[in-house]
């Protein structure tokens, strides 16, 4: 099933990649785009539905003001122009998850257009800014959810039938489409990832969406084409769907470059089609052909009234935009008293917002940074997920940090507690109790372990006594091992010296 690929570096020698990114973001409005049903995630099937979002005969859409305001605010944050007059259009096609068999969307009159977003990427020549031009950001509605039943795989192919839940149908979506992104060269994967990450940060900052890629509230389609050189026309592109993590954005671009290059070098053509990204295997597979243009029979939605945002309204919305991310970074660098490099590390690790919320909740900047760029980053990397996807809250971190400060936990134990938190075993205190992770500070057992360690290695006592205090390390290590990490190392040291009658 897997197609031939060639090495990425090899592909880049032969071809110039051109990216295009389409991001769908589900808005965090209380109600759906065109009816008063809840947008809450989860919920029993078909309980967040009404005649409108079920497309029952006779029902009519009623446009959500906040949906429009969110769209405008997103456009402004992406440096877009805001239309002075625009309409919704119907995109007509039949599909069971779409209740009306047309999607209420925008066609040739998007509410936001002609914007850009600058993203920073590390290159061989240092950090470099790439400008990603935004073609448009428009409003539309989400579809319901199909579950494929029967067959062996639970996948669409080979399924016997499907079950449809329309809770998600009608949730407001903003589709943000870039112009073709050229000039990235070998950094195409990094630029794609940096763009989606930056977009996500902006959307989160705007408070318009919870931007959870894993729950599908931020979804990314990656278009990629290759051409022999920047002087050539754009090549045929593939559209990879279902790219639902930042890491996958990067990986899927990398994969498509190597796949398309292999085809082209073998004298084959790239097929214009949608492709599905497989997180587990790291490959894309062929989906629906797009060789024949779909005939969506767009026409202006007659049930909705045109939107004509006054310039006053737009300016009012502009005034609600949060601080520009670059300005904010400079400010935080100063208040937290960290270096620019340290700030960059936070940004690269994608944890700036997380650190900020932890600090806002009372944690010290140093402690918050230590956790998010240290242990949490390590675990996330190990698992191939984003730090935030680990689901550790700053409340939990603050508790762990407080226990370290009082000596009830040491670093090693703290890591084990964190492991429990990530595994959702309970709150911090119950994990400590159930895993038995409290620091042993009772001198009795510690002294016993010290005596045993000295007995096992008699020479060490002499060394310490003769002033080679660094030799104490091996005893402390042995005691820690004997107590499975639960000893307070500082106390062990004190007891050791007292036992030997040596002063430090």
């Amino acid at each position, binding site marked *: 099933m897997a197609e031939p690929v060639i090495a990425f570096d090899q592909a880049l020698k032969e071809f110039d990649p051109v990216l295009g990114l389409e991001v769908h973001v589900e808005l965090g409005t209380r109600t759906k785009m065109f009816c008063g049903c809840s947008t809450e995630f989860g919920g029993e099937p078909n309980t967040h539905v009404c005649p409108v979002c079920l497309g*029952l*005969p*006779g*029902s*009519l859409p009623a446009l959500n003001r906040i949906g429009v305001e969110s769209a405008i605010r997103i456009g402004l944050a992406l440096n877009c122009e805001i239309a002075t007059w625009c309409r919704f259009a119907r995109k*007509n096609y039949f599909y069971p998850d779409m209740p009306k068999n*047309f999607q209420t969307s925008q066609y040739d009159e998007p509410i936001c257009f002609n914007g850009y977003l600058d993203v920073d990427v590390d290159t061989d020549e240092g950090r470099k800014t790439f400008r990603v031009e935004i073609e448009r950001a428009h409003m539309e509605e989400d579809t319901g959810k199909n579950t494929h039943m029967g067959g062996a795989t639970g996948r669409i192919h080979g399924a016997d039938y499907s079950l449809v839940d329309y809770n998600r149908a009608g949730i407001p979506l903003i589709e943000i489409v870039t112009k073709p992104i050229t000039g990235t060269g070998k950094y195409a994967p990094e630029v794609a990832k940096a763009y989606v990450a930056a977009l996500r940060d902006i959307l989160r900052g705007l408070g318009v969406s919870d931007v959870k890629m894993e729950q599908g509230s931020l979804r990314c389609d990656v278009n990629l084409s290759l051409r022999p050189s920047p002087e050539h026309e754009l090549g045929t592109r593939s559209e990879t769907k279902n790219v639902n993590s930042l890491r996958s954005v990067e990986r899927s671009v990398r994969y498509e470059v190597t796949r398309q290059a292999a085809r082209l070098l073998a004298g084959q053509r790239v097929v214009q089609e949608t492709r599905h990204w497989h997180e587990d295997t790291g490959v894309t597979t062929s989906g629906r052909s797009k060789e024949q243009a779909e005939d969506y*029979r767009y*026409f202006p939605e*007659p049930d909705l009234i045109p939107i004509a945002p006054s310039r006053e309204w737009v300016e009012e919305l502009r005034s609600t935009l949060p601080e520009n991310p670059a300005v904010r970074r400079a400010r935080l660098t100063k208040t937290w008293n960290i270096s620019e490099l340290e700030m960059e590390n936070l940004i690269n690790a994608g944890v700036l917002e997380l650190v900020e919320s932890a600090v806002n909740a009372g944690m010290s900047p140093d402690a918050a940074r230590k956790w998010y760029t240290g242990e949490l980053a390590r675990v996330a990397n190990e698992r191939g997920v984003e730090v935030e996807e680990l689901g550790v809250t700053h409340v939990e971190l603050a508790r762990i940090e407080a226990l370290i400060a009082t000596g009830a936990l040491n670093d090693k134990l703290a890591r084990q507690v964190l492991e429990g938190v990530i595994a959702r075993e309970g709150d911090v205190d119950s994990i400590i109790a159930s895993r038995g992770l409290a620091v042993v500070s009772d001198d009795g057992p510690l002294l016993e372990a010290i005596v045993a360690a000295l007995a096992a290695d008699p020479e060490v006592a002499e060394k310490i006594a003769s002033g080679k205090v660094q030799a104490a390390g091996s005893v402390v290590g042995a005691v820690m091992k004997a107590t499975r990490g639960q000893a307070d190392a500082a106390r062990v040291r004190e007891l050791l010296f007292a036992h030997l009658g040596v002063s430090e």
Partner: protein
Amino acid sequence: MSELIRKDASELSALLQAGDISSVELTQAHLDRIDAVDGKVHAFLHVDHQGAIASARAVDERRSNGDALGPLAGVPLALKDILATKGLPTTVGSRMLEGWIPPYDATVVTKLREAGIVILGKTNMDEFAMGSSTEHSAYGPTHNPWDLERIPGGSGGGSSASLAAFEAPLAIGTDTGGSIRQPAAVTGTVGVKPTYGGVSRYGVVALASSLDQVGPCGRTVLDTALLHSVIAGHDPMDQTSINSPVPAVVEAAKRGDIAGMRIGVVKELGGDGYQSGVRQRFDEAVVVLQSLGAQIVEVSCPSFDFALAAYYLILPSECSSNLAKFDGIRFGLRAGDDGTRSVEQVMSQTRAAGFGDEVIRRIILGTYALSAGYYDAYYGQAQKVRALIAQDFAKAFAQVDVLISPTAPTTAFKIGEKLDDPLAMYLNDIATIPVNLAGIPGMSLPIGLAPEDNLPVGIQIMAPAMADDRLYNVGAALERALLAQWGAPILSSMAGV
């Protein structure tokens, strides 16, 4: 025949308010009438005997408790089967929705219920309101009470026939290209298409969203106005509904004073293609209007010659999209699901089985007109023609207060006569369509019988948007003068069912 059923809604309202009759008694009289004659007329697709009596009883109780009730509380009504009714079947005259019971009420239905109006049942119609004869109903045609071999107009033939057959004193219709006015004309009743946006469309199964409008039907101008004032008004559930006060239609219907008014006769809506008796009665009505003090002028609206063509592009385009939801998944019919077919095949079989020929024709036509290669030439061009028609109206209304024309080119034709000739059928709406394209209000009012066939003829009165009251003012004046001339309402000359 009970005398009650021959009375106008306004008279019944007075009797109810005076306590002379009860709503249960009145409702029962109409149900009895329906039981007696609807086998021949077939105005109803569903008669809600129990529900109607229960509503009537509730109104009677409220009245005896001294509750404040609207003028039409306790008066029965026939509801076109295109409005969603919670707990009552809603078929839209189609097999597609056979047995479907909506989980919600249309806003108009809510307003009717709140006004204490008793819903007798759901009336027959051309399938999805596509037609001018009610012959396209999947449940068989409705017969014109004036001559059972003739059509009662369409698409709202059930509503107009129920009024003419004294099965109901009031009815609700919908009008996309004439579906209230043309049936009113051919049955000798009154029907009004309000200003687009004047009445909520929420819960009205859509044919063409930018043309559809719900409206009142009655046997007199005043009855129609009373019903108009109940159903009209802004509805947040329909964002195309107009958020301004309802025109004072009842006052206008009581006034009926047109002295000094300027009335325009539309040159393009008459003459060739109009039956001689229709033309004759129309010309006589113009004389009557003049005698009442109105100033008559001829007005030319040259774009109207293109209205039918524009309409038969816009309507199929919108309906091809509106009717896409009928796919056998969430409600209604499903055909061909034998476990081997894909969802696409089942949808296609369902739509072939559930839709009649006329519906399929229009969906195919609309699919074509919206296709990428044809959009500009067809849908786009039709929308521009539409703008020109609206401009013609605007220019005309700069000169005159209202416009008039015959409502329909002919009186009621024979059932089956035009069934196989869609184009001939479409011509029935030639005079009513411009009003829908421009979104303005229009009324049809009986002006006598055509001498050659003794069948009713209607006059169409048209007014600027949100000036619906002018229709009632002119209508009331003309109705009063004609009644004085005739000595009795037009329906009294009907042989009877």
